């Protein structure tokens, strides 16, 4: 019966197909990998670290929103009456719990933290090596940096109320911990503990000389970059002794240098590429020709070839002496037919290779060190490090000789002048609990001249939609 044979063959065939392996249903995408399988080698880990930096450099985080708000909410910049509609609510101090930028900063920071958590979680499964330690260290340092931003934007200053609500601390990637975990806000103090712990972890495991994956290059966080970020954290915390120790380590061992003359200074700011010789920048996020923020970066909000909405205040401009090299980073121009101080610190908007997004520079470490010395009673050393910076920036300047409260004021002014347009000014007001006097500009959009120390706007609102999703999140007072 050959038919019967055939029947059996057919049925066997049917049955075989029926018993089709489960793999038949396992269709894999061609441009992504299952997250649990995504980091198996050091090379994967390096890819993930690159991905983390890519996520961090977005417009909604370090790429634009953070640096813009850090100056705009303070006294360095304003939105011109001629504008594209961006940052008006912040300029006017009218932001509420549904305002876009605070919402984006919160969301994007946790998205970046997710990447860092993943690198740390998966990276620890790989065998320990200098390469892996460097990469994991970069994730630790990034996480510390991100929590420092979050706690300063969304929590009360540590110096004002360390037991106030900070932000939720998440250190496990959500594909491991689950997506419905409703983490409540930790205290500001607990968040700082986490920040210091992360930065210490990074410093402890990262090799001094970098690795073949990430040679010393300002586009990647190096061992002393972690320490530099830590000095900022301690400064914001008001822990000047530890800030001093951290900053001193960077100054003594980091081998970073300042641009020593006018042409080096101009050349440094004009250069869109990363620093490989430890000049000025300790860490910055890469924005090169093939991957940049296009017309949505910080350069575009300043450049008159881009949106060009935001200019420097007259008050800031007049803080510089005529011989201060840093004054050349602002140029007199026209906006809506009126004179304005056009910010030219990031001049590569029209180039295909854009300006790197500055995160921390050596100059900041020097002023942090100076402030820490001054506040711990060593005014001599304070002036040494302050003048190291001040005299090189203004070649005609003989150096500070002040003492006491005046010295602190001089240090803060120097800090303002050095770090303008890098998004740090606001925190000098909040950490020191000072009234913010926002200078009225003739062609400023709307003025909100005084931010008193009781003004609830000194802390950004927790996004309403984030609270809708996580019932454990409390709102900041006033919103």
């Amino acid at each position, binding site marked *: 019966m050959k038919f019967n044979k055939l029947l059996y063959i057919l049925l066997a065939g049917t049955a075989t197909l029926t018993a089709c392996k489960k793999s038949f*249903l396992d269709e894999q995408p061609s441009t992504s990998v*299952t997250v649990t399988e995504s980091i198996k080698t050091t090379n994967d880990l390096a890819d993930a670290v690159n991905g983390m930096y890519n996520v961090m450099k977005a417009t909604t985080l370090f790429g634009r929103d953070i640096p813009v708000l850090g100056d705009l909410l303070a006294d360095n910049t304003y939105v011109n009456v001629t504008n594209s509609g961006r940052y008006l609510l912040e300029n006017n101090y009218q932001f509420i719990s549904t305002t876009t930028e605070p919402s984006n900063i919160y969301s994007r920071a946790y998205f970046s933290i997710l990447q860092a958590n993943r690198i740390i979680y998966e990276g620890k499964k790989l065998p320990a090596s200098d390469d892996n330690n460097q990469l994991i260290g970069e994730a630790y340092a990034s996480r510390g940096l991100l929590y420092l931003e979050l706690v300063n934007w969304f929590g009360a200053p540590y110096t004002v109320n360390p037991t106030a609500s900070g932000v939720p601390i998440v250190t496990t990637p959500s594909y491991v911990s689950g997506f419905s975990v409703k983490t409540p806000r930790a205290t500001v103090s607990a968040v700082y503990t986490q920040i210091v712990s992360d930065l210490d972890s990074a410093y402890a495991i990262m090799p001094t000389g970098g690795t073949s994956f990430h040679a010393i290059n300002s586009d990647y966080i190096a061992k002393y970059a972690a320490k530099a970020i830590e000095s900022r954290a301690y400064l914001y915390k008001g822990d000047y002794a530890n800030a001093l120790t951290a900053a001193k380590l960077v100054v003594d061992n980091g081998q970073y240098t300042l641009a020593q003359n006018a042409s080096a200074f101009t050349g440094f700011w004009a250069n869109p590429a990363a620093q490989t010789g430890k000049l000025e920048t300790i860490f910055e996020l890469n924005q090169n020709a093939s991957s940049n923020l296009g017309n949505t970066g910080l350069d575009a909000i300043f450049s008159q070839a881009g949106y060009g909405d935001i200019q420097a205040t007259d008050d800031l401009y007049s803080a510089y002496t005529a011989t201060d090299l840093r004054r050349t980073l602002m140029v007199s121009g026209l906006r809506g037919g009126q004179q304005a101080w056009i910010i030219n610190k990031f001049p590569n908007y029209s180039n295909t290779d854009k300006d790197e997004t500055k995160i921390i520079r050596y100059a900041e470490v020097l002023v942090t060190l100076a402030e820490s010395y001054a506040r711990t009673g060593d005014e001599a050393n304070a002036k040494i490090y302050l003048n190291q910076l001040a005299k090189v920036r203004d070649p005609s300047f003989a150096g500070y000789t002040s003492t006491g409260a005046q010295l602190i004021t001089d240090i803060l002014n120097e800090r303002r002048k050095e770090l303008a347009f890098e998004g740090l000014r606001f925190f000098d007001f909040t950490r020191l609990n000072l009234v913010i006097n926002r200078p009225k500009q003739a062609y400023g959009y709307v003025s909100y001249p005084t931010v008193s120390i009781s003004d609830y706007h000194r802390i950004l609102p927790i996004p309403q939609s984030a609270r809708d999703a*996580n019932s454990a999140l409390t709102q900041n007072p006033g919103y």
Partner: protein
Amino acid sequence: MKRIFTFFFTLSIFAMNFAMAQNTKLTGKVVSADDGQPLPGVSVSIQGTKQGVLSDGDGNFTLTASVGQVLAFSYVGFTGQQITIPAGALPVIKLKSDNHMLSDVVIKDSYGTQAKKTYTGSAGVVKGAENENKPFSTFQQALQGEIAGVNVQINSGQPGALNQVRIRGINSITSAAAAQPLYVIDGMIVNGGADLTQRAGGTLSPLAGINNNDIENITVLKDAAATAIYGSRGSNGVIVINTKRGKSGKTEVRFDAEGGISSNLPLPDAGKPLTPDQYRSMFNEAFVNSGQYTAAQITALGTSYGLNSAGNNWYDLVTKRGSQQQYNVSVNGGNEKTRIFTSAGYFTQDATVLKSYLKRITGTLNLDHTVSKSFSIATNLNVSSINQNAPLQGSAYYSSPLASAYFLRPFQLGYNADGSINSSVTGNANFPTSSNSNPLYIAAHDVRGINNVRLLGAQTIKWNIWDQLKYTGYASMDYQTNEETSFLNAQMGDARSLNGSGTSQYSRYANWLVRNQLDYRYNIHGVEDFYVDASVGYEAQKSAGYLNTAYATGYPLTQPTLTAVGNAATPATASESTSNYTFDALYARANINYKNRYSLSGSFRRDGGSRFGTDKQYGSFYSVGGAWNIDGEDFFKKQNILTTAKIRSSYGTTGNANALANYQWRPTAGYGFNYNSANGQAYNTVGNPSLTWESSKKFDIGVDFGFFNDRLLFNVDYYNNKVDGLIQLVNIPWESGFGATQTSQAQNVGALQNKGWEFTVKGVPVKTKDFSWNVNLNAAYNANRMTKLAQNNQVNGNYWLANNYDYYTYYTRAYAGVNPANGNALWYTDAGRTSTTTNYSAAARVPYGHADPKITSGFSNTFNYKGIILALDFYGNFGNRISDSWSYYLNDGTYITGANKYQYTWLNRWTTPGQVTDVPKNVYGGGSSSNSSSGSTRFLYYGDYIRLKNVSLGYDLKNLDVVKKCGISKLYLYARATNLWTKTYDKRLPFDPEVPINGYNTEDIPQIRTITIGLNVGF
């Protein structure tokens, strides 16, 4: 392994039955004389005895009888037949239908053919002949109005565009594609419901290669009993296309030709753009009324906007007369052993908008061959090649031709004085901003074409293992390639800021399916006419999509022919990706039929799919149904009004896997997050391993009545579909990393319900010697409401998403009309309409009306008087509101410099105190009504309409002697017009009422009217 056992167990049961079978038996086959299709459920009895059987799904029957006895065949809708049993094999029995309309005697889906008489499901059938030669570029267009409950929205007049089809309401809210039905062609589940590509602004249905003339019938499966066998993909209903097959007998050759012209559907009077003179008057009046300008300033403004020239009519400039042609030739013939149907077709259609056309070549070869008594094979082969050009359409695009007709001022001149096309980008009389382009220049310089080649082939092997047991092996491949070129010029239009852009895209979809099925028929012993038909099968399918794109910008400005990507200065994107899915299913279906009087059906399918998360990768779907043919009862025969009556009902579950994108459930780290020119990966797709199909519970109850010897059939259905597990993006804790800046997590959280009624009257109400009237009148009422949402009471774009509301419920401010004293626009401040305000922002938004129709209806008539045939097909749509994406710009004087305006807004504007009107005073800048043309109930028009879709008049000359002498059996000459007449119910409506299902007119390519003449020749 378990499954192997199941098969052997099944096999052993069959074997036992085989042992009990008789040896002296006859086998035969019953087919329809009209189309050669097998007839299931035909009653075959031996005269003078009580013995009898019913034919099975392939028209086969087996019974024990002896030579010389008389076999009687009877079947509803067909003339009975008797034959005396000859010595040797029985001939194929061909039953003639006793009227023209009862063609839908069988329901044929992927898994077999079932007799309509005992069918427990709800399904509608349209004979392909109804739509042959109609000048519709897709079969869906032709399907509109033909089956109750099938809502076809011809939302774009672009030839070949994907039409939105919704069966029994909107059953999924994830995307437009997720609510489309499943398409099946000759048993193959094809990729048919989504646009072929993601190309912005373009649309080509993946099924545009189907030639209406190759279709034997279209069957629409609606309820659970009909669709549950399709498991996780049946929830939106199933549209089954069966193509023509050869039949034995005289070889028939047919030639059909139709050609003619296409023209614009007339614009509603309310929506005609202003003439140059009107625009000039409105412009000047708006500035005068603003009170901010002196007469001299207004004159100067007018000069700068070119108001002194003669102006031009943009609508006339961007539209034109088109043409329409199609030619089809087919051969149908064969003998009892081998039958063939083959055809070739050419179709070309020009829309009435510049550079919008489709050309299509199709070919079909369907073969059936009986190898031996127990083996037969069937082959289907359908090839098509399409060339389509589609301008960027919809008002989101600067270069959309119809949007230009409204957005351009009449004083922006299309042509220079010397007759050349105006390409100037300076001055307000030209095209100074990129949002304002000369569509004539665009049409002359841009390319937006797609070449689609499709090969759809299937092979079937049938093996009658023994009388009761049959094996069917089926394999099919649906292979499509698309080559797309898009070039936008550097001078003006959407790519002006990029100095021109070009995109080259290639996509390929290879979709295969294999199926192994066993059909078993069991005659319950000792009970006459009591059958169980059972099928069990396995099906596996994989669709592999391959897509690549090259995109570049910066083109040579004055080299119009160099449109290839290689000519561009800046390579911007090069991408390659795959998009695959697989399904793996085990299914079974059984019908129990007693005397064609009572039938019960059940189906079961276990489906696994690659689109389902690992936590819920397999699902089971089932249905149960029952039907009672009351006409089989003795008491029924005591009345003579009704000839047939049937009650049927079903309940079951199906799913919707199309609501899921391929790979969507996977938590993945994506590449492309590059940093410093090195590779970067980031965990960016949250994924959800529990993500799975949307599931639907369907209930249906229906009655079918036949009057006057079934010359008139009435059908009523009530249904209730409850869809659960609707996929929505859920706001998960942001600390997980997936907050506002990321795509959130998709979860099966929502639910909705569609309830409705369907009515159909079909038949031949009048039939005399010289005159007959064929009619198909159907209407469907559907009520859609959301029953569960991830977030209740929320604004969803222009709609209000809340429980107990229709999904497409508008959410807008209630317009309170114009203050007769001063012409200011007013809105209500609250839902209760107690007070009004002139401040638009202070007005309350309220839920108001909805976009999807409550009632859709079709009314088709064919009148035949002595061979003169008049066909009239109407389509109606009722109970919805429709709106306009750009009412803001096209009404009132506020933005008079920004765009031309609708006639209605000019002719009805408030001018004098005391005047009662709904259009505010014409003021540049709006005065105190500066938001007057912002969205409100003022721009929610009544969407009701009735359209005369198709009318044709013809005569068959076959009886002329000269024709007969040439051996011509048919020579039908006719004239046809489509979209000849449309009745709307809102005098303010400024556009054609047929808009996308979401209710928003977007100034897309308009539908066309065609006037054609045609010829059908048969030999």
